[in-house]
């Protein structure tokens, strides 16, 4: 039978296409996970990207060790992907902490350094202050570089320990908080998502409501719809150009979180408008008629009947938008910068995870690190996906019986 053959052929092609889509996904996600998973751990998520140097002012005060030598040996808080133990640890009484010597190496550099491997509970290090007198934290795994102006470079572990012991009164210790993590990028990403959605979602949804529910078909609506269509087609690099010239330079908002999120909000507008419009259009006219015939105002009709029916569609729009913000790179590169720090104010620069991944791939050629950041991004995307799925199922009025 000709039709059966044709149908089976078509079915085969459909299965094939779906298979391709799925295997592409598995392949990509697999690639990212295989390459990057080795780098992802708790430190990766909780540390800043750049290492940070501190001068800590500490009172000299003898504290004896409360654990035995064996237990001290077990304490190796450093990251064994980059660092391997050479000597120690040795416990130093007058700072109430143990230090160890390790080699640090990644694909470009290789050198020796001293790290703090253990800190006693009442060690003087626990109430250190920085040079302005503010309280500061020193953790295990911090690199210790000099004491009272004397560098440890070239010293053996014993010499260094002796040097520390010989100091009296106040100690000025130079410590380095290790970097290599993406905490600041995660936080910047969340800020960026939140800010741009707060700007774009009301604009987009209300705009779409105007287009579908109020505007009479004509030149004006066509203009807006066409504008939205064009906006959705404009590459984000052009938005980046615009954002750079308008927000950054003309409005003097600097390369900053605010410039970035305003730019991204414009990118999001058409996505939200279009999807919301589509969602609103699928709400049957009979619902609107029914509501109006009951003496509801247009606004009541929209908010009580039409919007609730369109919620799943709008949730999809929001999801797409979040994906877009998380995934945006070209525009943000030009408007929010590549600085891997938590933006202190709306006007501070900051790099999102994606920008960071791009930067790492481009500048350091470090595909593993880019993939590790990719894993974090994918996990965030999955979590958001699940959340919005749950939300939209909860909100779908047609599902309830």
């Amino acid at each position, binding site marked *: 039978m000709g039709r059966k053959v044709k149908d089976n052929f078509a079915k085969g092609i459909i299965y094939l296409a779906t298979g391709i*889509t799925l295997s592409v996904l598995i392949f990509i996600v697999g690639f990212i996970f295989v390459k990057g998973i080795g780098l992802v751990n708790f430190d990766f998520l909780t540390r800043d990207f750049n290492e940070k140097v501190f001068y800590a002012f500490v009172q000299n005060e003898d504290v004896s060790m409360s654990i035995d030598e064996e237990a001290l040996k077990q304490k190796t808080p450093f990251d064994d992907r980059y660092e391997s133990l050479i000597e120690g640890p040795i416990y130093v009484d007058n700072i109430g902490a143990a230090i160890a010597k390790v080699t640090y190496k990644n694909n470009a550099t290789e050198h020796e350094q001293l790290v703090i491997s253990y800190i006693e509970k009442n060690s003087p290090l626990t109430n250190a202050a920085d040079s302005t007198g503010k309280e500061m934290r020193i953790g295990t795994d911090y690199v210790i570089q000099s004491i009272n102006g004397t560098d440890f470079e070239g010293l053996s572990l014993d010499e260094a320990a002796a040097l520390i012991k010989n100091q009296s009164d106040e100690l000025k210790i130079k410590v380095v908080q290790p970097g290599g993590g993406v905490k600041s990028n995660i936080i910047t990403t969340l800020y960026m998502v939140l800010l741009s959605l707060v700007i774009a979602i009301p604009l987009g949804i209300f705009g779409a409501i105007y287009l579908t529910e109020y505007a009479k078909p004509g030149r004006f609506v066509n203009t807006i719809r*066409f504008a939205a269509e064009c906006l959705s087609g404009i590459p984000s690099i052009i938005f980046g150009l615009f954002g750079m010239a308008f927000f950054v330079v003309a409005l003097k908002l600097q390369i900053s979180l605010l410039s970035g999120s305003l730019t991204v909000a414009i990118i999001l507008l058409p996505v939200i408008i279009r*999807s919301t419009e589509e969602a609103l259009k699928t709400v049957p006219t009979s619902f609107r008629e029914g509501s109006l015939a009951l003496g509801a105002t247009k606004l009541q009709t929209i908010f009580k009947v039409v919007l609730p029916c369109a919620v799943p569609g709008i949730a999809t729009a929001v999801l797409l938008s979040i994906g877009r913000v998380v995934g945006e790179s*070209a525009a943000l590169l030009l408007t929010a910068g590549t600085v891997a720090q938590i933006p202190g104010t709306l006007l501070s620069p900051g790099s999102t995870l994606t920008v960071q991944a791009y930067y790492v791939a481009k500048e350091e050629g470090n595909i593993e690190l880019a993939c590790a950041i990719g894993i974090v991004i994918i996990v965030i995307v999955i979590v958001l996906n699940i959340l919005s799925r749950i939300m939209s199922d909860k909100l779908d009025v047609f599902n309830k019986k």
Partner: protein
Amino acid sequence: MEAIKRKKLRERIIENIFLLCACVAVISLLAITFFVFYNGLAPFVSNSYSLWSFLTGVEWRPGSNMYGIFYMIVGSVLATFGAILIGVPVAILTAVFIAEMAGSRAGKVIRFAVELLAGIPSVLYGVFGLGIIVPYVLKISPMAQGESLLATVFVLAIMILPTVVSISETSLSAVPKEYREGSYALGASKIQTIFRVVLPAAKSGIMTGVILGIGRAIGETMAVMLVCGNPIAGIPTSLFSQIRPLTTNIALEMGYASGVHQELLYSTGVVLFVFIMIINFAVNRIVKTKVGN
């Protein structure tokens, strides 16, 4: 009476808020358009560079005052076309599978997978392209490098999948079930129902997805930058030639360019812009004439 008046006033105010929001889209488009065109047309208006050599030149050497983008236009168009050719059918058929053929559980899983694919930033596609596709193309290529039109096409084809799939799928699911019932009752098979009734009924939504897909392909920058090669000159002559799409040209040099060089990068943006407009117009026309009767 007072209450009615107040109610009316509120309705009016909120309607105007809605209108205002809708206008923001237009205003931002106008602003961007004005800004890009103002800068992009300046060199031709002030005659500091000839439009003709800009559009037909095949070499881009800012230092030697050579700004030809013809080879970039060809590259962009070919890459987009190739990506659409591969990506769109796969995407639409996947959408059909999800909406029409998969059981509710399998459908959910695949939809989730597609949304996941959509959530992966383009940069990671670039990293993937750099890590897998470029080396692979290098293996089969008669040329000595893997950065090529072909690699770009593959990366872009993958990147447009989720956009086209999810929008097509939404519009397929929105087709009323009465159409399907009517078709089945006439002895049509599932496949016939899908291809003759459901797909045509969802046409406008699918087209929207395709437009967005084209937009994504032609406008993609960062992922492409890592796999296309970005040569200084040369019209691509085979799938294995390197290309320099319009977008990466802008992204590579915008950071520091100044004067005519900067303006001509905006001009590159104008060309991109015009392409998007043409595509939008064309697709609008197609959708209208097909659905109109």
